[in-house]
């Protein structure tokens, strides 16, 4: 009997193992870029497979059928990934032509393009995206609208409605992040705001405010990109600044509290940030410079402490002029390898190895970095599929 149980257990374990292996094989892993190409070339989303040590190999260019603008706001992420059971989709915004293209990850084929309202316009600085399992939100930086799209089967979308949003100083909507029923947005003028999205369409939580860093600097610094912790306790803001500045707001009450500013160095600009999957590190891009920083983050207290900084990333000035968005090799721990978009006529993807232990960290660009992104002349947005779970 005991033997039988053991045998049965072994068989079960083998079954689970096989199932897991099958599931793993069924979930492809990609790094992808919104190439944001202008009307003078073919706009596309490029998929890269991830090899040993996080190396990237160009796998497929998926033409979007639309056009981008080869630039725009740093904080507006033009990619959104959905990994909900059997639904595996990538959505990419097309800044110039205005649509949101859906790509089925299983086939790497475009399913369709969905448009917002007639007034939605992101052709000046892009269309930012944020997603949960039911809705995709698109921030149109030109019309100051956030469009709500309902996720449809097979990577489709259907437009629901617009809300008009504008910063306290007249700023344009820029970065967005979602956790649970809360969405937080930045406005590029020092102001930030949260929304309740429990019913789909964003409803203001009545907490629009100017950030502490913006006020202290006379609006020379202002929140641009935004991240939220997995539990929705904190919103973290990467600031456009003449230095490296990150702000954290406690939103556990359902409303943004006054932000706490963290000065993390002299590097110019910190417009793009990303939390590690284990929430111990916050990666901060020196957007107008050539380095990546990591700060230690305490997800319990919301406090940041300085961590480490990379060396000068290869190709600065000669190949690219700005650093853009971030993604990670894995959805566990520190993410292992950080990928950073390099904006330039020879756009690329920097690959930086992360180590972190005992309160120390290192960021080391890999020997094979950067990977070329030949289909983009101005890469800003990058993502990993499957996406981080929060």
């Amino acid at each position, binding site marked *: 009997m005991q033997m039988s149980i053991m045998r049965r257990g072994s068989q079960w374990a083998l079954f689970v193992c096989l199932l897991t292996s099958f599931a793993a094989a069924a979930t492809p892993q990609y790094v992808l870029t919104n190439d944001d190409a202008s009307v003078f070339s073919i706009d596309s989303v490029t998929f890269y497979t991830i090899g040993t040590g996080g190396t990237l190999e160009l796998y497929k260019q998926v033409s979007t059928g639309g056009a981008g603008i080869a630039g725009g706001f740093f*904080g507006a992420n033009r990619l959104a990934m959905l990994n909900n059971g059997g639904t595996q989709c990538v959505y990419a915004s097309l800044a110039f032509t205005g649509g949101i293209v859906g790509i089925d990850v299983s086939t790497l084929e475009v399913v369709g393009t969905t448009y917002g309202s007639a007034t939605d316009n992101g052709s000046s600085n892009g269309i930012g995206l944020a997603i949960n399992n039911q809705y995709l939100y698109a921030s149109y930086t030109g019309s100051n609208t956030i469009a709500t799209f309902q996720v449809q089967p097979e990577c489709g979308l259907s437009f629901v409605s617009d809300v008009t949003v504008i910063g306290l100083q007249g700023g344009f909507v820029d970065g967005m992040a979602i956790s649970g029923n809360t969405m937080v947005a930045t406005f590029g003028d020092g102001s930030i705001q949260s929304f309740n999205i429990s019913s789909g369409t964003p409803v203001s939580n009545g907490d629009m405010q100017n950030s502490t860093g913006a006020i202290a600097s006379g609006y020379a610094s202002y929140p641009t990109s935004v991240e939220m912790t997995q539990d929705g306790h904190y919103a973290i803001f990467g600031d456009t600044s003449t230095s490296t500045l990150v702000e954290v707001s406690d939103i556990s009450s359902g409303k943004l509290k006054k932000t706490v500013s963290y000065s993390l160095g002299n590097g110019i600009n910190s417009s793009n940030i990303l939390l590690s999957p284990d929430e111990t590190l916050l990666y901060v891009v020196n957007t107008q410079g050539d380095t990546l920083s990591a700060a230690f983050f305490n997800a319990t207290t919301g406090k940041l402490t300085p961590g480490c900084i990379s060396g000068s990333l290869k190709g600065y000035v000669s190949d690219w002029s700005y650093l853009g968005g971030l993604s990670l090799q894995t959805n566990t721990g520190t993410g292992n390898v950080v990928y950073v978009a390099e904006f330039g006529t020879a756009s690329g993807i920097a690959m930086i190895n992360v180590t972190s232990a005992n309160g120390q960290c290192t960021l080391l660009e890999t020997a094979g970095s950067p990977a070329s992104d030949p289909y983009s002349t101005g890469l800003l947005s990058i993502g990993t599929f499957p996406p981080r779970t929060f």
Partner: protein
Amino acid sequence: MSRLRFFVFIFRAAAVVVTLTCLAASQCPNRPVPGTVLYDAPSIYSQNGTLNAAFTMGHSVESFGYTHYCYKYTTSTGTVEAPTLRLNPGDTLLLNITDDITNGPPQSKTAMDMSMPSGPTCGDGGTPTINSTNVHFHGLNVSPNCGSDDVLTTLIQPGSPGFQYTIKIPADEPPGLYWYHPHVHGFTEFQVNGGAAGALIVEGMQNVRPEVTGLTERVITIRQQFLVPWVPGPYQLTVNFENAAVAEGPAPTILMKPGEKQFWRVLNASLQDFIPIQVQYGGVPQELELIALDGYPLAQTRNQTTILIPPAGRAEFIVEAPPQEGTAFLVTETYSTGPTGNPDTGQPLATIKLSNVTSDAKLSKVSPTPVKAATNEAHPPIATKTTTAKIDAKPPAPANALPLKFSDLKNATPTTQRKLYFSEEFGGTNGPIQFYITVDGQKQQVFNANEKPAITTKVGAVEDWTIENRALETHDFHIHQIHFLMLEQNGQPVANQDLRDTIEIPYWSGSGPYPSVKVRMDFRDPTIAGIFVFHCHILLHEDLGMMHKIQVLPQ
């Protein structure tokens, strides 16, 4: 500033084209044909201590879509563009400016508040627009108040009778090359891009630097024009309005006799081009005897093969022609303005040809002495179509018995030390961009017409300013009303304590100490009491707010 997105370019270029088609007639005089002999701008001279002239600011779009703005000077014999104003120390310039700009390009460049300051206005007042104008007399050490070199409250609007400036050149004004250009905050680059700039010479250089006595003189104004001035990209440099060849194209031709020495007075009136100037014979840079910088004669001349002239800077130097015909060029070398700066690429500016015929003998000559006007002449006479003028062995004006302004600044004791810094940030690749110049300890903010002065000092003060560059592109510091003494670069004493009114501060690499200059400011002259500005003279930066006020209180 780095790239802007393509469609903005298309949109704005289309707007320019629309504007072009809206314009019925060309207002500005025709500019020289490329590849022809280089002429100096016509000069007009003060007479009996006064230069009385009237300019009209015109506007037109030429066939390739370049927008021209022009200072037109008209007499009974015709209309010329941007003549050189020549005065002696102690003279008075009475300059009437009328604004005849019509159908200027659309002003969609920026959402900045360009309103005039509340309170007293000067001239026509009203709201500054792309069609408004005024004049800054760059480098002159004169009053900043209404009627004089005031850019903060003076506005001239289209259709008004105009405005008369009364500029009293100090008796101890250094002889040298100055210049005039529009300075309406938010729109300066448009008009300068279109060519609205001209030279102003305070005569008497030979009284201070006898090396130039008897030499043939050239006034060379380098301008820069973008198709759309706020879209970085390809641009044209012009030399006295003649297009400079980028590669193999026709270049302006400078005529010199074999071995002849000439005195060249070069003005960088570009929007943002840093010009490391050279004269090359057979590809070899020649020694240039530097006489003056920014209109201030050097304490001692020195030989250099390259003279860096930042935007708005001037260099005056002696050039010796090659003994025999060969490949000879006036060139600008490539200059790196940093990761986010515009590339300033090297190119020839003019070709130098030898001629045994005196170059200026082919054409009418400009007398170095003040030209006497006909009694019934409403305007000072102009000398047109001149290639050069000669500096007479006899001074054109009485030798200045006074020591030059600022000549004792080196030994003055500073009363105050200040630190300022340039910084900038981009919210995206297409902007929003913020350009700041900040007094250390104050908040970074862009210029606002209603702001309080960032610095308040008083007549009698001598201040040492350290100016850092914390941005990833080179900036170009300029202060109105005074020259400053160069003391240090990057914390080290400079080899040459020149007096400047404009100085480049190289870009920060992203790590290490910030590049800096330390300069000595002289606020002792009560003439300059009032409110004026300091700013980056990359004109886009100035227009977008990299500027602040300084108030000099009377004693």
